[in-house]
């Protein structure tokens, strides 16, 4: 995940030093990059590599909490877990992808406005984007229970717009109820991860020299063409970063579905948390975590590769 490039150490290919002092100096020079890497390396080992190994080993153990677990290299758990929970896994990816697309559609105009149109309101708007972080994730999601409640403001608005039938037809809502539907869960995910989309987008848009817009206009681009040919390609790094920062945590999320969904919207994160905390089936929970991780890794790799070339469009 984290690329740690080790550059060739200067002086490494020099001949043998002629005295001890110089030898020490060269030795110090050689070890400097590694010393600088040390804190990050230790951090990664303690907080990433060790838990990962632990997780992998746990997924291959058998036993129970009372009798204790033993490593039996039980690879069969993987096909079993996938077969049993593929529905939730796929659902999680679909929900996360929908939330990512929605967040992108909302965040792009927002970030664009803040970066190019906000003038002196820019900093205030940025603070407002991250202001929701001042309260807890849980509280914010609970608040959405009220917002999406039956006969609440949103259902009322949908009814007034006359789109209830349409949404019911495509299975997004259930009767007159929003809570407990896929729409509610995706809405919650979109809302909760919006800042993760907005901030990288803002950062990449803000770096674009506004004179490039003028140059595009001067070279016969309408504002819309100028946007497509100049602004959008230049903001692609922000789009990629924002979608990753939204999609990855959203795919593993278990709060939104729990608070805004129903049993029919169960996401994989919920299954994992249930297996760990209630069923106490640690191997299945660990195996599901590994599967989720590898799936996301594969999707992200494909995505980054694709967008890497599309950037040149």
């Amino acid at each position, binding site marked *: 995940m984290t690329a740690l490039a080790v550059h060739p150490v200067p002086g490494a290919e020099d001949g043998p030093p002629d005295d001890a002092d110089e030898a020490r100096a060269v030795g110090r020079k050689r070890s400097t990059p590694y010393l600088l890497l040390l804190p990050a390396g230790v951090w990664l080992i303690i907080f990433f590599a060790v838990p990962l190994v632990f997780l992998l080993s746990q997924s291959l153990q058998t036993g129970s909490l009372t009798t204790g677990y033993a490593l039996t290299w039980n690879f069969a758990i993987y096909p079993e877990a996938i077969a049993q929970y593929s529905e939730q896994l796929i659902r999680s990816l679909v929900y996360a992808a929908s939330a990512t697309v929605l967040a992108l559609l909302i965040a792009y105009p927002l970030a664009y406005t803040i970066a190019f149109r906000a003038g002196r309101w820019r900093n205030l708007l940025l603070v407002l984007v991250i202001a929701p972080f001042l309260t807890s994730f849980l509280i914010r999601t609970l608040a959405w229970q009220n917002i999406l409640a039956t006969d609440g403001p949103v259902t009322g608005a949908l009814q007034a717009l006359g789109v209830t039938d349409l949404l019911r037809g495509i299975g997004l809502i259930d009767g007159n109820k929003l809570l407990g539907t896929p729409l509610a869960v995706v809405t919650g995910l979109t809302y909760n991860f919006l800042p993760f989309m907005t901030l990288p987008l803002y950062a990449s848009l803000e770096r674009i020299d506004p*004179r490039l817009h*003028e140059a595009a*206009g001067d*070279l016969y681009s309408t504002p819309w063409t100028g946007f497509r*040919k100049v602004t959008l390609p230049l903001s692609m790094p922000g789009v990629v970063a924002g979608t990753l920062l939204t999609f990855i945590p959203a795919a593993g999320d278990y709060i939104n579905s729990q608070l805004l969904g129903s049993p029919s919207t169960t996401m994989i994160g919920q299954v994992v948390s249930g297996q760990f905390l209630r069923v106490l089936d640690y191997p299945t929970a660990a195996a599901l975590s590994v599967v989720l991780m590898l799936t996301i890794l594969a999707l992200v790799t494909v995505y980054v590769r694709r967008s890497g070339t599309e*950037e040149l469009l």
Partner: protein
Amino acid sequence: MATSALQGAPMPTTDDRTTSDGDLRLVGITKRFGRFTAVDDLDLTVPQGSFFALLGPSGCGKTTTLRMVAGLEQPTQGQVLLGDRDVTGTKPYQRPVNTVFQSYALFPHLDVFENVAFGLRRRRKKEVKADVDAVLELVQLEHLAKSKPGLLSGGQQQRVALARAIVNRPSVLLLDEPLGALDLKLRRQMQVELKRIQTEVGLTFVHVTHDQEEAMTMADTIAVMNGGRIEQMGSPTELYERPCTTFAANFLGQSNLIQATVTGTAGDDLLIDVHGQRVTLPRQRSTVTDGRLWLGVRPEKLRVAGPDDAGNRLTGIVTDASFIGVATYYLVRMPWGQELTVVQQNDGTPPLPPGEPLTVTWLPDHGFGLDATQDEHAGAEAIDPDAPAPAGAAR
């Protein structure tokens, strides 16, 4: 090759251009930012195919004027006309005008070829490749067509910016101090190149600069701008030999401005009293014909007088003499306290040491008369410190 390919292409841009009269005209144009007037009721005509320079100190409204021509800024008042067509109020992409920006503003995500092709592609031109290749050859960048602009040197980026604009063969090409970021040597080189390109492709160039030498060497017509207005407009020689305001006299080269009074006329000449001494000035070389005036003479037009020199004469004391080989620069204190600058060509006579009396002389045809109410120092301190002194100007 490149040139003929470009010249062979039909003159494009506006379809509704009916006459060959493609002059750019600004009529009574004014731009205010809040209560600040950046461009003040400016009238300007740039003949088609000419190289026009807008010269003026920082903040005088050059960029604002250019941006109004490009459509990037809308004038508060007045009109912009291209030929017969009033383009005031149209959007930049609707105008057959292209800009070479001061900062180049190249698209960092596109390579040199695509940067240059940008305008052609937006107008769905055919034969993009041939046109772009021809222009890249013209600016000698064929070998860098596939490079990203970020990897190019300043001079190369400047040429890409130029190519990106001229490939569209606009009616008017606007250049906003395109050479400002370059070092002196490269700047001189690019000036020659720009001038060559302009003659070869025959476009109208409006070139903004605050380097007076750049303006003088390149332009057919120079407009000296100050405080949002045009002080004077004319060919480089006209401007230099016959400035009409103290600002123009000081900004373009250097001038000795002497307080004087018209006492009468003799034929076509004005009789002028300079602190008790009598000199003459042709009537048509003065903007004032009676009362007080500034009598101006360029330092290189003043000469150390021989015993039998005709012309106007004034006598003072040498306070400083610097010999620089090709000439000697004198400061000569006049009886009324003013120091005149004299550039004496090295004709073999040894320089006079400070303290010696010196009589300077000049031909009446070399003087000029300016309105006495103007500030004698206007424009003198605004000279770009990096720009070398133009030939003949004393430092």
